[in-house]
């Protein structure tokens, strides 16, 4: 289904090149485990509940530190530096802003609508930019911080400009929108003072987006056909309603449909991750991403069942499995020298951007 057909630039390899050094593959590795993370998760959950949510900022830092700190490549791990107080402050600002907005909406509905549109058009790209800066600058590897140099204008073009392009072309340019968003996030990232390059071409995006689209259409068409033959219903409007009332068969069908939807989602996510991470070049290092749809779908579906049947308790294991699969299939095609990066100055950004993004659940594309 997904044989990683990614057209992409290759590392300099001709032997005639005097600078040629043999390439080595440096795999990513996840060293955490579900049992250990379960204990961290449940203790932090309890602390969050009994502090009425305030501790969640600390819990978030511990969670990210656990996952970053267990992610190794070439024998060294990543580190997350976000500070709970900065995150808490960001969250409070967001909640306060939200309350103000709701009140405004009660008193001046028209003004609030305009505000919401303005926020959607200009606020979201700004939030994404800030959020990216925070995430990257709060991450280090080998005591060198990552960085993000994206500007507001670039975010506007990628997230809003291309969105309208996708809309006026009736979705045909949707893949370009997806790609631009990833490109904004990755092209502007840097490790130390080494800028990332994003190499994945548009063709890759068009291919997997359209395959996903047709899989989805086929799925709905199949469901529609089954509905008609089994229940004699037509008109999509009433489908869910009829199924929910058609007894056990209806629920089985509904569940089967849901699992199939997850399958399509798995294909999309594997392809999108490969296209995004697999397109990253940092100096002479090239990231390789070889997620495959079926194993990813298997993990999604089995995680889903396990979480439902354990009433949520399997959650930490599910997270670890998901992350481990992704990292096990990611590697750096390297010249073997990760020691040559140098630092840039400029750290210290508050957490508001990222928290705004978290709160409104903006899709960051990768």
């Amino acid at each position, binding site marked *: 289904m997904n044989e990683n057909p990614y057209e992409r630039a290759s590392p300099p390899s001709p032997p005639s090149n005097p600078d040629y050094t043999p390439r080595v593959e440096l795999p990513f590795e996840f*060293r*955490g485990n579900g049992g*250990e*993370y*379960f*204990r*961290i998760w*449940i*203790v*932090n*959950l*309890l*602390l*969050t*509940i*009994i502090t009425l*949510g305030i501790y969640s900022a*600390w819990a978030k830092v*511990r969670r990210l*530190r*656990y996952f*970053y*700190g*267990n992610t190794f490549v070439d024998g*060294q*791990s990543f*580190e997350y530096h976000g500070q709970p107080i900065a995150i808490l402050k960001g969250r409070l600002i967001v909640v306060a802003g939200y309350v103000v907005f709701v009140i405004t909406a009660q008193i001046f509905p028209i003004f609030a609508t305009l505000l919401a549109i303005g926020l959607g058009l200009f606020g979201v790209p700004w939030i994404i930019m800030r959020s990216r800066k925070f995430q990257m600058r709060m991450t280090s*590897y*080998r*005591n*060198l911080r990552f960085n993000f140099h994206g500007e507001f204008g670039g975010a506007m073009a990628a997230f809003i400009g291309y969105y309208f392009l996708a809309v006026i072309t009736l979705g045909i340019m949707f893949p370009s929108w997806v790609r631009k968003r990833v490109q904004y996030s990755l092209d502007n990232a840097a*490790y*130390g003072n080494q800028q990332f390059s994003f190499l994945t071409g548009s063709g890759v995006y068009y291919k997997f987006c359209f395959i996903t689209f047709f899989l989805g259409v086929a799925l709905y068409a199949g469901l529609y056909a089954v509905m008609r033959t089994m229940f004699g219903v037509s008109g999509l*409007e*009433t489908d*869910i*309603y009829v199924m*929910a*009332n*058609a*007894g*056990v068969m209806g629920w089985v069908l509904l569940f089967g449909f*849901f699992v199939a939807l997850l399958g399509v989602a798995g294909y999309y996510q594997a392809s999108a991750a490969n296209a995004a991470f697999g397109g990253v070049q940092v100096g002479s290092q090239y990231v390789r991403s070889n997620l495959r749809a079926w194993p990813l779908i298997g993990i*999604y579906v089995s*995680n*889903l069942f396990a*979480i*439902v049947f354990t009433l*949520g*308790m399997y*959650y930490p294991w*599910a*997270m670890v499995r*998901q992350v481990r699969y992704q990292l096990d299939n990611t590697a750096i095609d390297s010249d073997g020298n*990760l*020691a*040559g*990066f*140098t*630092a840039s100055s400029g750290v210290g950004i508050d957490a508001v951007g990222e928290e705004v993004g978290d709160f409104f659940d903006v899709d960051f594309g990768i």
Partner: protein
Amino acid sequence: MVITGRYFDGRTSAGIEARLEFGADGNLRVYGTAEPIVVPLAEIRISERVGNITRRITLPDGGVFETQDNDAVDEARDSLGMRGGSPLVHWLESRWHVAVGSLVMVVLISIAFVQWGVPAVANWAAAVMPAEVDHAIGAGSLDVLDRVAFEPSELPKKRQQELRARFVTMTKPLDDGHVYQLEFRHGGYIGANAFALPSGIIVMTDELVELAKTDDELVSVLAHEVGHVRGRHALRQLLQAAGISSLAFALLGDVSTISGVLSAAPALLQAKNSRDFEREADAFAKQWLRENGIAESNFDTILCRLDDSHSGEEAEEKDKDKDRFDYFSSHPSTSERAQCPKEEEVETDAATEAEPDPAPEDEAEAPFEGAPPIDTPSQA
């Protein structure tokens, strides 16, 4: 004590194999660099331990010593009496009995929250909201029902007016901010039934009107539906759903793969609330009947006859299933709500098709097969 690891100076990504020594003289030494580094212990920062992730000892100039030997760092820190993050949280996180205890606490708190917290907050919020909110929730519900379920009423205009007049005398003295309105529809496959929409519109099917032997029976059903509107059950149901969703997302929110399932969680838990609402509406109906000098038995009679009419030819099968899915049913079983005379005749003319629950998709009723035959569903 000597700990091995790697030292990164923070200017390049190059690391060197190094050894770290916590000196008893109050200095920290890093060996392996060209010149050994010596800094006072008071100026270093030891990262908090989470699980067994790489430990970082940060020096004042930004250099970092990284090691996997967490236990040795902890030991050195403790023996020197240094403060280093919050060892308490790590202590809690690394013990299975603490984890199991936490799990029990989380489960108990969640159950208590769903059982008492959510309804209490929902009731409070509903009490604060004006009756217009109910109106907004109900707007359009009748249109949806008309599209997917109902057909225009075939009752004679005169009969409709009679019942409306009765309804007006019933609801006028209530004066509770709701605007009550009675509508008639042909139920079709829904059969004999009545619905209360949060906006105050009460829909009664022709079949129900035909099923009733006296107007007092119909009035008792109307009183039950008025009980739903007055009790603001639709609004409270919505608020409770929001509360339960928030809880579910707070506990498991960042798992993208299961958010779809989480959104279904309230539907299951709500079935129970829905039955509580039915009991509340029943209680209101009976009280209202008492206060207005109408025999309460009218309510029992019509409920039982409805029960029979919905069972119809499938009566046997229905009896078998009656209480099996009780947790999921939206209504309490009829035997719990009313005393039915055993010899009640079956009204086949109003018998309905097998569809057990006519709830449109935006309704909060739990649509499980095996639900006891519906009698007076309510909130849209």
